């Protein structure tokens, strides 16, 4: 692994999970696998922390959950983004970008 792994803050994890669900229903294991794939191993999701995150965004009404059968034929709980969850994701993405831009500008400023 060439890159350093970064720890995730709770709010950031919620945002990534929402993103993982933006194309359709997924169960927890898939969410984790997707994040690992897309970040090329740069983001280490602690597997144990993933589930509280899923339940938390469910309690907030951003996702709905339903039991189903995964592609490997096993039972799994699938999470689906709600309209509210989609809106939340867009807002958080925008504010995250603003934040990153601002911090970057400050760090790169000269004198």
């Amino acid at each position, binding site marked *: 692994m060439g890159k350093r792994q970064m720890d995730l803050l709770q709010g950031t994890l919620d945002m990534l999970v929402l993103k993982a669900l933006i194309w359709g229903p997924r169960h927890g294991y898939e969410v984790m696998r997707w994040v690992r794939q897309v970040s090329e191993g740069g983001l280490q999701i602690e597997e144990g922390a993933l589930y509280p995150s899923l*339940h938390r965004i469910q309690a907030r009404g951003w996702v709905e959950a339903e039991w189903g059968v995964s592609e490997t034929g096993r039972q799994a709980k699938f999470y689906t983004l709600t309209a509210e969850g989609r809106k939340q994701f867009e807002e958080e993405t925008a504010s995250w970008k603003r934040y990153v831009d601002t911090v970057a500008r400050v760090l790169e400023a000269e004198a």
Partner: protein
Amino acid sequence: MEGKPGFRRVRRFASGGSDLRREVDDEIASHLEHTARELMASGMDPREAEEEARRRFGPVEHSREACLAIDRRRYRARRRWEALHDLVQDLGFAVRTFRRSPVFVAGAILTLALGIGANTAVFSVVHGVLLKPLPFPEPERLVALWESNPDRDWTAADVAPANVLDWREQNRVFTDVTALLTLRSQLALTGSGEPQAVDAIFVCGNFFSVLGVPPLLGRWLRPEETWDDTERVVVLSHGFWRRSFGGDPKILGRDLRINARTYRVVGVMPPGFSYPLADLDVWIPMGWSKENRTQPYFRRAHYLFSVARLKPGVSLEQARADLRSIADRLEEQYPETNTHMGAGLTPLHEWVVGETRRPLLILLGAVGLVLLIACANVANLQLARATVRAREMALRSALGAGRGRLLRQLLTESLLLALLGGAAGVLLGAQGTRALLALAPGDIPRAAEIGLHPAVLLFSLAATVLTGLLFGLAPALRSVGAEAGEALRESRGASGQRGNRMRGSLMVAEVALAVVLAVGAALLAQSFLRLRQVDPGFRTENVLTAGLSLPGASYPETRAVGVLAGRLLERVETLPQVRSAAVTTALPLSGLSWTSDFTVEGWPAGREGTEFHRRAVSPGYFRTLGVPLLQGRVFTAADGAEAPPVVVINESLARRYFDGEDPVGRRVRFSPDDPDGEWATIVGVVGDEKLEGLAAENRVEILQPFAQAPEHQLKLAVRTDGDPATLLPALRAALKDLDRDLPFLDVAPLDDLVAEATARERFLALLMATFAGIALALAAVGVFALISYAVTQRTREIGIRMALGAAERQVLRLVIGRAMALVLVGVGLGAAGALAFSRVLQSLLFGVSAADPATFVLVAAALALLAFSSTYVPARRAAQVDPAVALRKE
């Protein structure tokens, strides 16, 4: 990630409790399984893969608990929301249902409002008088101290000053002991225009510090101010300060002229403080001379009420024991005055509440019964409606509403109904409380503290909810319990035996409760009427009475009092409407005459008459009050201050002590122990007057001429032609000529004083009659509604009977017969209940037995008659049904 395969629902979402935990476990297990599968796919052996999956997941327990905490919160929030949603739905449904049957709703609300209103009103009094703590700091530490003496039949009697002072100094259980006069003194406030009567209570200097209520302005009286060697000071009540001085903030230090003496104002008490009597104006220190302490009469005269504050942690028993040991010592030390003189204490709250406890609790019980009848009535209405609504319920049940859901719906309706009735009831109760206080006898303790306090409203709310459950639960259970299919099939006709039985028992209960109340009311009413018929021993009509309190400062000699009284009577008797006039040291029925002991000339040494009542009256007294002379003569103008002492005795005394002998001419002496005491000759015997209330036994009494035994506090009685009240201006003018600073106090026709003597009985009888009236009306309406309903249910049956040739009379007999059978069961049960209830009443009854057979028979007959007339109208309607119409009705 590529597209998902379609997923299907495999089970319902978890519904809570252990389900939540299982679901989280399943989810984590699923994750571990997926991880392991993938690891196995890349060649790891199964056991290793499983271990690696666990390792990657981290502490399962931690993750699971975090998920569970979140899920549980979410689950609870959802349940709350659902419950609220259901409630709103049920309420909406209830309102729609109510709109469809406005008559039922109005009837139910009115019934409940009467029941809850009456309960609210009575409970507000019970709360203010019995339940609320006394308005003093740490009131549970306050006790009333009293003396007792078996030789004189004294229990909880007034206390002698010297004894109180010894208790105060010798006890080890009280922080302090104080004493006050048991009666209000009306004194004359002069110095600004017309002399004004003020209501004063004489107290020891430590009175306020024992009670502990801080003054609004200035300071309390001080302990040393009990005695006359300090400056004369006075503390004002808030009401008096506002009324007479416009709430002047600079009142402190001002001098007031009261009974010809000057008192400096040192304090004003806060609003609401008026102890020991309502509407007091001022508290004045005793002003005793310290020389009194060694005088025998300071230990002989019992005229004080004593209050003490227990030291923290001292029990009533410890305090009693300490007080007893002091009393024992005093008995040894002062055998002359303290032989057999015991001492005891009662918690002050209990003392204040005193005799009002039982009547109030009885009234509370009575209104409770009224509420039960109201409940039964509404339950009956609900039941009748439930039958009508059976189809609706069955339909909803068939459409998937669970029993619990339907039950909740019905209970919501009942509770909504109860709350509407309760709200109307509280409004009614507020009026009721006012009416109650207006009717209540003047001596009801703590009247000023009665009102719709939060505790009272809480009681009303509790009564309301309980009522709603009571009248709602049985009908609701019944409606929901009926099998859906059965209810859908049975469209009309027989409505189920169970419903009929329940309605029948409700009617029996209503009638029974009404009988209990009616018997109670009848007994109390009779008791009141008997009391009114008691001969007080004097004639009450057309007599005006007024008090006079002659200041000791202006009339230092009692002889001067006699002179003033004589002159006043001379003037009053010349007024045109006046037939006769008199003065007396105390009016009958007031319970205010002194008692002491006497001996008769010729009795063996040691024989004494004890506890005779002693009053002094002017010669015209017997004529003015119409007291009959039985033997000898009454006083004349010749029996003056200088003339040989004479007395008149009453019939009871003559009978008890001169059995068969002629008392006239014999001589009595008032202080049996005093060999130098003066002998007074008995010149006549007069009829007994009721001295301490109409229900009390006749007392033995000795009367002296006022001129020979005048007192500073006296009563004027004037018999007039016509309305005595019109005489007052002329009386005032006559008095003003003699002493311009003297006001008349407590002016009242004698009739009013007699009415006051029966005020408590009147109040109780009136209230019970009101409650019984409501109960009877409710029960009659209940019976009427029930029979009407039953008749409607049986229209078809009646039609068939008539078609088959039954006569109108037979139908009447059929309908009325069944109803009356139930009524009679109710009357019987009620009579039994009344017998139990009236035993509680016994101590409040006068001249009538609690088991008076005539009363029971009469009430039972009246109830049966009332019920009969309630059944007759619907029965008659049933009998006039046209068979053809009845049969066409499905």
